[in-house]
């Protein structure tokens, strides 16, 4: 059995204590829009880059510029399929895209996730007897969506020892609900490489 002499044991204990002191925890607020490179997994920078590229591309596409010059077409967002092996909240990506499109003043949206809540409110106003006839909203006046936004997110992951290479491809399309024509489509590719090094240095 290996035993340390008393002074050596004391030195080891001091070393461990020093290391414990050095490994401090600090909490600080960061820049939500800053570049995040913690891991090669899908992160906030990827989400923001995808949203910016897609919004810029859609709003500068000549036929869309022409359509939105005189009016604000109504759109609804269909789910973006997550075909990657990661758990990614694709709704968060489409939320950012639809928010930016809405704030650009070029598009309006109907939220299909809130249809049930809207119906409940309509029933309350029209059938509960609690809301005056003058202030109650009328049925059959909602605006139908002219366009549907949908897409895919896929990835290819490769590993070689301590290196991980991830390729993401985000495809987004806008379809005319009446004609079934795809009016616009674009892709955003992202490549990330992560290397693990000794001691995390």
């Amino acid at each position, binding site marked *: 059995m290996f035993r340390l002499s008393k002074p050596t044991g004391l*030195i080891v204990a001091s070393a461990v204590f020093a290391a414990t002191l050095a490994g401090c925890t600090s909490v600080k607020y960061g820049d939500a829009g800053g570049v995040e490179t913690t891991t090669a997994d899908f992160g906030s920078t990827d989400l923001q880059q995808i949203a*910016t590229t897609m919004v810029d591309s859609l709003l500068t596409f000549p036929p869309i510029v022409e359509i939105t010059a005189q009016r604000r077409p109504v759109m609804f967002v269909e789910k973006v399929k997550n075909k990657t092996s990661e758990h990614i909240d694709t709704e968060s990506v489409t939320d950012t895209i639809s928010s930016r499109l809405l*704030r650009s003043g070029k598009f309006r949206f109907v939220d299909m996730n809130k249809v049930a809540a809207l119906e409940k409110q309509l029933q309350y106003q029209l059938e509960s007897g609690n809301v005056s006839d003058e202030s109650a909203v009328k049925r059959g006046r909602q605006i139908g969506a002219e366009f549907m936004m949908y897409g895919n997110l896929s990835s290819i992951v490769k590993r070689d020892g301590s290196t991980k290479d991830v390729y993401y491809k985000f495809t987004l399309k806008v379809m005319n609900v009446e004609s079934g024509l795809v009016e616009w489509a674009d892709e955003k590719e992202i490549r990330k490489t992560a290397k693990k090094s000794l001691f995390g240095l």
Partner: protein
Amino acid sequence: MKQLSSVAALAALLMLTAGCTTSGMEATGRPGADAEFAKHLVIYNEALASDVIIQDMNTRVTGGLLEVNVVLANLTGSDKKIQYRFSWYDDENFEVEAGAGNWTPLLLNGFAKKSMHALAPNPTVKTYKVNVREL
């Protein structure tokens, strides 16, 4: 004595790996380029400010939105890992959607030029700035 120095080395290594990361101080720099272009560039690092300039810029209005294309040039032979962000201003010089813009990573190779493209978030935007900092 040998044992003592080994333990000290181990402690130093532990402290090095476990220690907190601190970021450097940022300083506002001035790009040495065309004054017309330079007023659109904000660099948050003194060393970077003398190395990176706007070489060319073009703007146009598309569908009522200001569209910007900026060519950033690396004046040195070493690669620059930077991040950039566009900030937008209305005709009264108020920042539009302040803090909403995100930083984009960019690798600017030695003596390389890269163009960055952006679209204003809404029609109230009249001018812009490109913010650059180290990655």
